[in-house]
């Protein structure tokens, strides 16, 4: 029945909505996405060249140094494209992008070095104002924002963030539930311009499998205008069809598929390789200063033309020793 009731909006976070929500435009775009089984195999460089542009809102899955799409990250840095806005749930890949000073706005939940603490790159870029806008969220909240987009709805409610300054510096809104009267924070949907995910295996069309925990791959892959996948291994579509319940990202979500073994190096990849602790420890030293970070980026990113050159530089002996 029609009525004149209303739900009070009790509180609105001061943070801005860095990426606008337009679900109808997202629908139109998803409608036009290629549904044909056509190969999307390409290099990191080609994917970045075709699908990423200055100022895009981007995001990476997973978290920490595990299964991070580093080969794509390095290609982004080399591409010269810049002024990105970012979903800041990241460690190593985001640290490199901040080091290279390519990020202007962040929906921030966690950017740091985990057990190794605060990141020098984060401190330098945020404290200096190179990153000009920071909006705060929690890990769950940021993921639920992807989940809202993945469901095709403009928000999801939560009990998280209530009563905190995280809420105050977010773009969430607190309402009184029309069913229960309880207070809830509404989290606005987050649609990425371009998302980057590394997976264990994919076919050439982009049907993807991930071993073990799936982080937020399910939600994020469904919340991207463009989605670039890198895969440890490219497999036949017949193998995808043998175990369709293992497909976590179906091909129709995917725009580019990059074959990139050791893509997560120096981090680890479940069922593929261990972390390169020596290299990472060196990195931890380098990132402490701007000079050190620039040296690191020159040697390990800018001076290398592509992922294969990186693998050559690391060397077969080292790579073999990391294999699980």
């Amino acid at each position, binding site marked *: 029945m029609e009525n004149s009731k209303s739900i009070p909006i009790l509180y609105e976070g001061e943070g801005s909505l860095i990426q606008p929500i337009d679900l109808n435009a997202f*629908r139109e775009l*998803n409608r036009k996405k290629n549904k044909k089984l056509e190969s999307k195999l390409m290099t990191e460089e080609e994917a970045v060249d075709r699908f990423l542009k200055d100022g895009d809102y981007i995001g990476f899955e997973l978290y920490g140094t595990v299964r991070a799409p580093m080969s794509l990250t390095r290609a982004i840095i080399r591409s010269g494209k810049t002024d990105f806005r970012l979903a800041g749930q990241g460690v190593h890949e985001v640290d490199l992008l901040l080091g290279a000073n390519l990020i202007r706005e962040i929906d921030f939940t966690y950017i740091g070095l985990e057990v190794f603490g605060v990141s020098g790159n984060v401190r330098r870029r945020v404290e200096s104002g190179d990153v000009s806008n920071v909006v705060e969220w929690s890990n769950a909240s940021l993921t639920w924002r992807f989940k809202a987009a*993945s469901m095709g*709805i403009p928000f999801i409610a939560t009990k998280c963030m209530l009563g905190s300054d995280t809420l105050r510096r977010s773009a969430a809104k607190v309402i009184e539930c029309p069913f229960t009267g309880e207070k809830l924070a509404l989290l606005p949907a987050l649609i990425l311009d371009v998302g980057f995910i590394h997976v264990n295996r994919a076919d050439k*069309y982009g049907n993807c499998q991930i071993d073990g925990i799936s982080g937020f791959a399910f939600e994020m892959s469904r919340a991207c205008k463009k989605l670039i996948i890198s895969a440890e291994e490219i497999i036949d579509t017949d193998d*995808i*069809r043998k175990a369709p319940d293992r497909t976590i990202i*179906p*091909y129709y979500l995917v725009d580019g598929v990059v074959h990139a073994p050791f893509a997560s190096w120096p981090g680890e990849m479940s069922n593929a390789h261990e972390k390169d602790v020596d290299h990472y420890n060196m990195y931890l030293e380098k990132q402490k200063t701007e000079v050190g970070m620039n040296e690191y980026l020159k040697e390990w990113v800018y001076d290398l033309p592509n992922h294969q050159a990186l693998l050559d530089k690391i060397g077969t002996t080292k790579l073999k020793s990391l294999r699980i």
Partner: protein
Amino acid sequence: MNTEYNPSELLICLASRIMEDGTTAFIGTGIPMLAASLAQQMHAPNLITVFEFGGTGAILEKLPLAVGDTRTFNKALHASGICDIMEAAQRGFIEYGFLGGAQIDAYGNLNSTAIGDVLKPNVRLPGSGGANDVGSCCWRTIAIMKHDKRRFMEKIDFITTPGFIDGSGAREAAGLPPNTGPYRVVTNLGVFDFEEKSKRMRLISLNPGVTVEEVKDNTGFEILIADNVEYNDPPSEEELKILREKVDPDGLYR
């Protein structure tokens, strides 16, 4: 080969011809499944079938008998669950959806809930199921119906699944996603679209041997007639051959 065909075979062929290649179709059990499978083998090899309870891109070697059937994810590209599928539809990924029902009106609204007052029904029907979701979120819906005055009504007893509701702009006003809605109605008498301005059902082509008068006589509302009503080709020999030998060799739906 016997080129005589039964009414179901005609409906299957008509529905099949509507679907374009390179897109997705949300498939219910029965005629839609046969139509999609036939389309894949005739003109739309890249038509991806999506089943409500999680199967995407199955190879339909054996025809499913239900939307949760093992065959709906036979050699599929993706086997997930109903939320994943319905959310894909809500995000705009599903082009075609098939619908049926006990009653339809001029705006393509459908009733599959109850005959009579829903609170004290003369006949309790099976309910929305996924129909309302398909009708809300897919871009273009195709209704497949038996055509008579008890079904094609001026006012249906219950809108289970919204068509154009009460005319142009009504879907958007209700909050449904823009540019979605009824696309075609396929019946034993002909094929219908919805006139752009009024959003009312319009005859665009007649089945072999059917007249405009017959359509009018069997429709309980004033039906629009297109300027150039064409005749639908009967099922071709190729269509019947594929349908009988490849799509449904066991004759499950004959």
